[in-house]
């Protein structure tokens, strides 16, 4: 069962340099109780995708459909959005410190969220918050409740943010690179916490990252984005065992191994294209080592296979090209 269905979503920005097709015709489903990882190069459209889902892109043209349960989110007014944002769909950002107001204690900020979404008074809101802080394994939650954001470490703030996202028991949590700014030991704690809480609360999670190590650890399924498109969709085991798209394959081969020391590291030649001038046909074709003639002329269709779907001409049967 899918809880969120995105169909032919396009988010275009008008800029002096031309139209930026940040997200360009993507479709995917978030299933109930799964962790779906969205991976891809900086600027490929991961954040814009999820901001569009949350109705948070300003000054953009949005086309296509976003269905959450029976609601069509693209038709939502701002007031309708405020009823689900933070309550049914919560978001966790990359930089924990910038998500908090430095002038208020984390307790004040949490209580405000709880009172806005749940029907309760300040005293019971406080209790709910402290329970939640316990749940995300913050030591001495009663004391921490009265601290200011700058008194906490990055890892601890990230956990407070998770607590805030969970407090309304949302159906969906969207986490945008929640561990990129953390060191690996704290990253491990935060990722473990995500998995445990996901099992307890049965939340569906969209997890954005560019780290395949993190994908392997937390995700059930993965969607790989390149230049505003989803180029491959797979279960996590299929993706690592049998990557299909040339871009995914190259990325997985680029992991640094110990024996590479003092050698040149593998990489994909060329540069990531700018969103104002994407290449014709398959957007990866100028950098692809297996490109065919058709690749620069026509956009590849999405081909569905057992545990994967891939948008690449190599998987299209001869007579259909």
């Amino acid at each position, binding site marked *: 069962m899918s809880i969120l269905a995105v169909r032919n979503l396009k988010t275009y920005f008008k800029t002096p*340099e031309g139209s930026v097709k940040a997200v360009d015709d993507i479709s995917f489903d978030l299933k109930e109780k799964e962790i779906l990882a969205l*991976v*891809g*190069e*900086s*600027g490929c459209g991961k954040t814009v995708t999820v901001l569009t889902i949350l109705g948070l892109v300003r000054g953009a043209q949005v086309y296509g459909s976003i269905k959450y349960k029976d609601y069509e989110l693209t038709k939502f007014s701002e007031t309708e959005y405020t009823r689900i944002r933070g309550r049914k769909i919560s978001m966790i950002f990359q930089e924990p410190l910038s998500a908090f107001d430095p002038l208020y204690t984390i307790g004040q900020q949490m209580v405000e969220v709880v009172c806005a979404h749940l029907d309760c008074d300040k005293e019971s809101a406080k209790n709910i918050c402290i329970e939640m802080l316990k749940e995300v394994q913050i*030591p001495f939650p009663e004391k921490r409740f009265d601290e200011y954001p700058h*008194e906490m*470490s*990055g*890892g*601890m703030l990230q956990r407070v943010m998770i607590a805030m996202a969970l407090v309304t028991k949302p159906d969906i949590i969207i986490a945008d690179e929640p561990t*990129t*700014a*953390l*060191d*690996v*030991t*704290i*990253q*491990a*704690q935060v*990722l*473990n916490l995500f*998995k445990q809480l996901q099992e307890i609360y049965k939340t569906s999670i969209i997890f954005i990252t*560019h*780290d*395949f*190590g*993190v994908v*392997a*650890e937390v*995700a059930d399924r993965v969607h790989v984005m390149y230049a505003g498109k989803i180029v491959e969709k797979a279960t*996590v*085991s299929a993706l*690592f065992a049998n990557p299909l798209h040339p871009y995914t394959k*190259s*990325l*997985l081969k*680029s*992991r*640094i*191994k*110990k024996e*590479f*020391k003092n050698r*040149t*590291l*593998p*990489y*994909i030649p060329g*540069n*990531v*294209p*700018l969103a*104002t001038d994407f290449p014709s046909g398959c957007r990866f074709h100028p950098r692809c080592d297996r490109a065919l003639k058709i690749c620069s002329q026509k956009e590849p269709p999405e081909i569905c296979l057992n545990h994967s779907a891939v948008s690449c001409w190599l998987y299209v049967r001869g007579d259909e090209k």
Partner: protein
Amino acid sequence: MILSLRQVKKYFPVRSGIFLQTTGWIRALEEIDLDIEEDKTIGVVGESGCGKTTLGKVVARILRPTSGKVEFLGEDVTGRVSKDVERKFRRNIQMVFQDPFNSLDPRMTIGEILSEPLEAHRVFSSKKEQDNYVKELLVKVGLYPEYLSRYPHEFSGGQRQRIAIARAIALTPKIVVCDEPTSALDVSVQNQIINLLQQIKTEYKISYLFISHNLDVVYHMSDKLFVMYLGNVVESGESREVFENPLHPYTRALMNSTPSWDPNQKRLQTVKLLGEPPNPINPPKGCPFSTRCTIRIERCDKEKPQLVGDEKHKVACILSEV
């Protein structure tokens, strides 16, 4: 030796109340010794907030130490210095920051960004020579001369990081501090940037102070390794040696926490590291790691272990002293 730090401390004041009195200190660096030799890369890893960026900024003289001594080519540069020494320092030590999106002035063209340090140091007598050099620089970092009149927002993250690197090497410095230069980038772009840094190092004999959360990258880049925790160096030595034979419990935890890239062999659930990094305003009395260490003994809470050992490998842990 190009640069050495001796017992360098950096404390930031904590201010509160309406008159913003200093009510405490954030101990960002505690008595750090660091030598940067010619043509060597020093890797720095550690907890978020343990003082890595602060260390980089002290090395690049963006921050002055609270106490201790900094020597640059035999000269004391801890406090104020003569204009000449300041110029020589600026020319020779540069920094590349983590965020490729905020570290370049959005109102300047790429040409202006790269020319600025050259003009400030009057490297070239003619504009033409300077322009040619700037073009060469762009080509060197894998970009095209046509990009000179473009603005930073027209480039991808990886390309912006290349521009930042071009600016950092423009004056052929002796040391470049790289503060997580690839952590916002995907693996392939990360590898391109690292290859570029390595190629520049071979050509110019640059030393890097290379700060990163990614241990694979640090292993690849560094000759020496510094492991930091809560403002302290807890382990240091030759990079290969420390990676192959980590002695400090924090270093071991770090090395075990790197995700596996293999969904059939998930590693994180097995990571056993308790609790939280303590607050640098109020660090533990004994070993800075004692609040999270799984093998601590009573002495660890009372005595602060010193960094001991030889150049090849040093560690600060009570248990390896006995």
